[in-house]
Every structure is written in structure tokens, then in C-alpha cells.
């Protein structure tokens, strides 16, 4: 999602680097939480993308279940 992870600023951050940081989190840390638009933009984009992907999966599963019905009846 976020291609260029910013350099970790602390040991804790390094430890958790791969554990799925919230988009906007890294930017926010760097900017000491002053930049709301940055976070909001990242959230908006991320939420939209997540919803599309997850929704598409749900629809594909619906079609697959019908296909299963066709195949075995």
C-alpha cells in the first residue's frame, strides 16, 4: 500500500515495521501529528481500495458458489 516506508525512527518502529502499520501512520509520526490532511488522504485512499478489493472477493465467491451448484447438479 505505502511503497516507500520512511526510515524507522526508533527500535520499536523497526521491530514493528512489517506488522502492518496504518497508512498515514509513518507520515504522521514524521510530521509529529501536525498534518491531518496527509492522514485523511491516506485513509480515504486506503479505505476505498480495501473496500473495492474485499467487495470484489465477496462477489467472486458468490459466483463461485453458483458455479459449484451448476457443476454438481
Amino acid at each position, binding site marked *: 500500500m505505502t511503497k516507500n516506508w520512511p526510515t524507522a525512527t526508533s527500535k520499536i518502529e523497526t521491530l514493528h515495521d512489517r506488522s502492518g502499520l*496504518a497508512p498515514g501512520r509513518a507520515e504522521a*509520526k514524521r510530521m509529529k501529528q501536525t498534518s491531518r490532511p496527509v492522514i485523511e488522504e491516506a485513509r480515504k485512499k*486506503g479505505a476505498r481500495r480495501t*473496500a473495492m478489493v474485499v467487495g470484489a472477493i465477496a462477489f467472486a465467491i458468490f459466483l463461485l458458489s453458483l458455479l459449484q451448484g451448476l457443476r454438481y447438479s
Partner: protein
Amino acid sequence: MAHAATHDHHDDHHGAPSNFFVRWCMSTNHKDIGTLYLVFSLLMFFIGGSFAMVIRAELFKPGMQLVQPYFFNEMTTMHALVMIFGAVMPAFVGLGNWMIPLMIGAPDMALPRMNNLSFWILPFAFALLLSTLFLPGGGPAGGWTMYPPLSMQGESLAYVVFAVHLMGISSIMGAINIIATILNMRAPGMDLLKMPVFVWSWLITAFLLIAVMPVLAGAVTMLLTDKYFGTSFFNAAGGGDPVLFQHIFWFFGHPEVYIMILPAFGLVSEIIPTFARKPIFGYKAMVFAIASIAFLSFIVWAHHMFAVGLPLGGEIFFMYATMLIAVPTGVKVFNWVSTMWGGSMTFETPMLFAIAFVILFTIGGFSGLMLALAPADFQYHDSYFVVAHFHYVLVTGAVFAIIAGTYYWLPKWTGHMYSETWGKIHFWNSVVWVNVLFFPQHFLGLAGMPRRIPDYNVAFANFNMISSIGGFLFGASQLIFVGVIVHAVWFSKKKAPDRAWEGAKGLEWTVPSPAPFHTFEVPPVIHDEELAHGHVED
């Protein structure tokens, strides 16, 4: 639809809209939508409960006393549909809506308008479903599992299928919203492995919903085309197979029971540490156990079908796969007990319900293990033993956890403490009568009483009468719950502090009580020691 999260600037500093219609019908606020879900769920709990009262009244004595057999069958079918899709699932979505943003430091759900839509579909779906009871030919009476060919009788099927589609769409949108919220809206510093267990449980549950609700939709769509469009998916005369429906249905149905229990695990994992004043034992193990249970839930569905004539290899596979679930579940039970071990425990109402959950859910788990034994299941199948089993899991499991969660967060929602005395009266009545209600059903089932029948052999008379008495009193006890809630919302004078419970940790306790209309509009600065598991190493 994909409008994200944070509120537009012009309404930043406003409270709730004063117009009733605008506030509740057009709400995009996670707290108000959470409240709507919870109120809806409580209403459905009583409607589904009244159906259960009809069932227990008819079964009070052998012989037919009160209702016609068809109506009895409508009651068992509707009781299940209403309780599962109308009471338990919306209650968890309501709790998730209210608490997930507060727990991860987000200003709202990621997709607030879709959130509104997810909720407002439900009243229409249930109005449609319940209206079938007034159709000339009656409502659905073939059981909530809708097995063909039985479910194909009568003209209510089309209505039921449409209602199920609506519920499914609502659940899928709710799940999309929860996933998008948890993955995108966490406050800086709220790493995935610092999230409260309740949030984790909901994240995993949401993926289960995404994976199985479309399958249910597929199954009922095929029922519909079989009945009205001349297909024969499940019609042997046309080359189809009725057992195929059972496979598809239970591929949805088994994960569905975990959809109803995993968020309950999450709730109990919040409550026990608070009142034991210790962090949860084995945080990562708890999260991993939830994920393992979710995975295993996809490969056990045919344990509902041992009696249909599966190949021997199938019986054995599904038997062992099912028994495997006892391992992560056992991890959870032992971890809850270990969390309490050596803690300075107090026994406020949420804790009482949570402890009752651990003990009574485990009874339901053990009877589930008994049912998982394929050879033994030929005896238990479709008997009252099954009824006893899943009511322990769903009533003393899911419902008790929902009640515990409600007591736990009621001070945060209302700004007032509820009456601890009446909470305890509610608890003790519930816990006693629920066992009087369901425990004898084990004996009835082992003695051979089938489920879903309006009349029975006189040999079953005594235990049925005891069970019915327990049922009436358990039902009546829930009125106390309503009383406690009404008192806490409108009449309680006792102000709740921000941190309503001394041992409570997590971001939700850092905001005022009652939680203001907008919270965390500026992402909070997270200090690990505020979190329940800020620096876990286990």
C-alpha cells in the same frame, strides 16, 4: 459510497443533529449507528424470545395444547432466523461500530454512508421476513436451514430468500466497513499487534463474513430458481441433488456459528483482564487461536451431515478436523483462566457474565465435541441433545458475552453507572434459569426426543416441564436487563468517570463519559502503557 472516514470540516465542531429524523435515519456517526444496531438487536431478541416462549409453552406438557403443528414449525424456523440474523449478529455489529473506532483511535468508521445503509437495510429485511407469518399460506416452516425439498413447499420461499439476500448484503457491507476501518483508520502507533483482542476478533470475523455470506446468497438463489425458474440444482428428478444444498448451506453455516462466537471471545478477552487487573495472558496466542479457529471453520462443515450417508473417508476427515478445533479453543479457555489466576479480582456484573461465559460456553464446547464423534452422532443427530448443545454455545456463549459487553461499556455510552444491584439480580436469575432451561434438554436428547416437534412421548414429560419453567423465567429475567438499561440511560444519577472501571485499559477509556459525538478527530498520541497490550513480548 467509498467516501472515507473523517468528517467534512464544516461539521467538525457540531454535536449530534437536533432533528430526530436527521440524527437517526440519516446518521453517518458510528456511535449513533452502533446504538441503532444495539436497539434493533434488543427488539429482535424479544421478538425471537416470544417465539421461543410459544415453543416452550406448547412443549410444557405432552399433547397438542396451544398451537397448530404448522404454526409450531413456523415458530422454530422464525425463532432461529430472528435470533441469528436479527439479534446476535446485529448486536456484535453494533458493539463493533461503537467500540472499534474508539479502541483504535479513529474518528469514525472508514465508510460512514455505507454504514448507514448496512443498518437501514435490516429493518426492511426483518419486516419482510416477519410479514410472511401473515401470508395466506403461512411463513417458512422448514427450519432455518431451509433444506429442500421441505423448504420449497409454500409460497413464502421467495420472501424469505429476498429477506436473506438483504441480510447478507447488510452483513457484507458491514464486514467491508470493519475491515476497511481496521486496516486504514488506526491511529499512528496502533500497530496491528497492539490492537485490543476485541478488534482482532472482529477483523477475523469480518473476513469470515466476506467468505461465507455470498455462499449463503448463492444457496438461496438456487433454491429460488429451483422453485420458480425450472432449474433443478437440488431436485433429484431433474438430475440435481438435495444433499448438494446441505453441503453449500453448511459451508456457510459452520463459519456462521464462529461469526457468532469469535466477537464474543473478543468481548470476554476485554472484560476479564479489566476485572482481574492483569493483562490478558498470552495476547498473541489469543489472536492466533482466533485465526486458527476461523481457518478450521472452513473444513468441518460436513459434521452437520454425518447422517446423510457420506463416504467413510469423509466421515473420518470431518470428525477429526472438527475435534482439532478443540485445541485453539482450549488455548483460549486456559488463557482466560490464567488471566484470572493470581489477579485481584472483583465481581461486577460484566465480570460475572464473562466468568459464566467461560464455564458455560465450555460445557457447550464439550457437548460439541461429543457431537463431532461420527459414530455417536448417528444417535444424537436431530435430537434435543443438539438443541441443548447449540443453545449453550449461543445463549450462555454469544448472548452472555453481548450482555457482559453491554454492562461493561454502558457507562461509556451513557455517562452513567448502571445499578450494580439490579445488574447482579439480572445475572443470577439469568445464570440459574438458563441452566434449568437447557441442561435437561441434554437428557431429553440422549433419551431420544427429536428436535422440531410440537408433541412428544409422555416419557419426556418431566424434563420438558422443567425446561419450560426455566424458559419462562429466563425470558422474564431479561426484562430486568431492559430495566437496567433504561435506568442507566435516563434515570441514573451516578456519573461515570472517563475510566469507568479501575482496571480498564485501552483508548476507549481516555475519552470522556459519555463519549462525545465526535472523538479522535485529531489522531491521539498513543502511549504504549495506556494500551492493554502496549508492549507484549509473549
